[in-house]
């Protein structure tokens, strides 16, 4: 847990991946371009001393991931967001099955989302049922810009997509995470247009739509949609990385989000391994709005607001009881491995008190 001004903040990293971009897994030049683009995001927004080399970045593995997320207690829990990209990667880039290996090793620490692609038709619906049955997924991560044969993407407001959203509602898969954000080479920018979320969100009020990357660079479209649709949330991945070198810009974006969505509908995400929560959480927690921004937006990034953004809002969506988790984490495998018991009011913590 992160401590700020004497307050403990339970951190749920709402956006993590365990990917494999080793060259032997790449079957299309797009797979290499995609990873290289990710790496530019990584180096572009990571403090120099925290940057990884490209080989580590291609494949860091479960062990390093566990340590990076939880080793210094930067995050208490994390939500897997799969990205299949089957046309680019032989075994997929970051599939539910790949993520599940680690999620099932530490089920108390991870939330495992699945995914669907409406272009898979009947077979896709069966796969979604399978994911629910096999892993009891509480949500899906959707990649509307994924290539499939000649198709360069799909829309969330299409008839086919609605059929899958109906299936999600029927199965109780409530959290619909959509990547709507910066272009990633070589994907088509237009496929990240956030406007299709509008109709989907109003048609499925029983589902929650978490727009990852808050629609950047369509922040204006996103905020206007979210202001009208109470079941639309903003995931901060990429935006949170701006807290490193673009603090003023980060403050401006947070000001807009707090103004239009309010503090209950914003969720922290590192986008690991694009960025690593072991330093990013610290950056975000210490970001401040300028006086001018506070004045302009009439909002504050105070500890209570940050508690919600960093964990409580995700806990609400994924039915996580934070107090019960703290008790559980006093002696779970992760706490033992990294000696974290004191963070959760265990022995060392009790002595310190």
């Amino acid at each position, binding site marked *: 847990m992160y401590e700020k001004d004497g307050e403990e903040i339970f951190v749920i990293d709402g956006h993590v991946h365990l990917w494999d971009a080793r060259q032997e897994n790449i079957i299309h030049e797009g797979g290499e*371009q995609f990873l*290289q683009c990710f*790496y530019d995001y990584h180096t572009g*927004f990571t403090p120099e001393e925290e940057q990884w080399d490209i080989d580590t970045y291609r494949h860091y593995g479960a062990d390093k991931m566990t340590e990076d997320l939880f080793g210094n207690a930067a995050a208490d829990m994390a939500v897997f967001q799969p990205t299949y990209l089957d046309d680019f990667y032989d075994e997929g880039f970051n599939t539910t099955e790949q993520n599940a290996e680690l999620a099932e090793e530490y089920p108390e620490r991870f939330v495992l989302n699945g995914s669907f692609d409406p272009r898979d038709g009947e077979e896709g619906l069966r796969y979604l049922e399978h994911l629910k049955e096999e892993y009891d997924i509480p949500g899906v991560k959707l990649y509307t810009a994924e290539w499939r044969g000649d198709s360069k993407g799909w829309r969330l407001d299409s008839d086919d997509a609605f059929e899958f959203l109906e299936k999600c509602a029927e199965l109780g898969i409530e959290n619909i995470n959509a990547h709507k954000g910066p*272009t*990633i080479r070589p994907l088509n920018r237009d496929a990240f247009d956030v406007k299709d979320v509008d109709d989907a969100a109003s048609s499925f009020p029983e589902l929650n739509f978490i727009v990852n990357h808050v629609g*950047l*660079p369509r922040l*204006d479209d996103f*905020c206007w949609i979210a202001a009208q649709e109470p079941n639309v949330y903003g995931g901060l991945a990429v935006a949170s990385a701006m807290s490193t070198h673009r603090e003023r810009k980060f403050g401006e974006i947070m000001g807009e989000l707090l103004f239009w969505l309010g503090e209950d509908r914003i969720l922290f995400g590192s986008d690991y391994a694009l960025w690593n929560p072991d330093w990013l959480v610290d950056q975000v927690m210490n970001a401040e709005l300028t006086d001018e921004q506070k004045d302009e937006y009439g909002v504050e990034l105070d500890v209570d607001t940050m508690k919600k953004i960093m964990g409580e809002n995700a806990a609400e969506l994924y039915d996580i009881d934070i107090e019960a988790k703290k008790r559980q984490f006093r002696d779970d495998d992760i706490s033992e491995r990294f000696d974290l018991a004191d963070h959760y009011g265990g022995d060392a913590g009790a002595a310190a008190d």
Partner: protein
Amino acid sequence: MSGSSADPTGDAGGDPRGDSTGEHAGDADGVAAVRERLDRVEDPELARSIVELDYIDAIEVDGDSVEVRFTLPTAWCSPAFAWMMATDARDEVEALDRVREARIELCDHMHGEEITAGVNARDSFGETFPDADGDVAAVRAAIADKARVSRQREAVRTLLDAGADPEQVVSLVRADLTIAGDEAHVDLDGFSLVVDAAPIADYLDRVTTSGHVTEPADTLFLTPEGDPIPADELDVVQKRSRLATVNMGGQGAVCDALHRARHGPDGPDGSGPKYVDPSDGDRSTYDGDEFTSTWTLATEE
């Protein structure tokens, strides 16, 4: 110029990277004139000049033909945006009397070859990218609309600051406005408010071009959807237009970080050479079987 070369460092002899802009000294006046025209070309997403943004790598003038090479912050900038900048650059340069032909080369972009070939062959965007959804005109309109909304904010704020009330502001029509030198005169129910012309003229320019405000009786200020604004919603429209501005700046921050990631800490605002030797700096090169570096562009001569 001594031939059109794909070598991004130029081929003028001497230190190939001695001049960070890659310009040749041979026709300094010609280069300056071309640069001045290029300054009118905007990055449609940021609504700022491509010269100011330092996208121009080289301007080469050879008699009545001109070659311009430019690089965008990232290789994956929207092809439609790249196309707009390339065609606008060609048209602006060719508007110079002394120029018979301008050749534009987009360097280091995922679709650099197609765009370079298409623009110089005078093909349409649709001919160059048969698979693309929508046309460039629609993208231009969407972008222009964001600029309109952003400019409206400044104009409305100018009037509110000068004492106009929201009811008066939302009921203004085109005929209520007169620009005289650096002053704008606004007719408010019979008395005239005088304000700085710049934000008003800039806004007028955008809405006239976009076709939103052309007739004397047209309502001057509009919602992002193009409708008249109820007085009690002026505040929320102003906040939406602030959002449009924040959005533009946010994208600029992402582009800038990616540019630095690819080209080193000196680009694009620093003074260092913009180009990085492809052999040690271009991570977009894939040494597997299929993907060849986007730096190597074919020349047409």
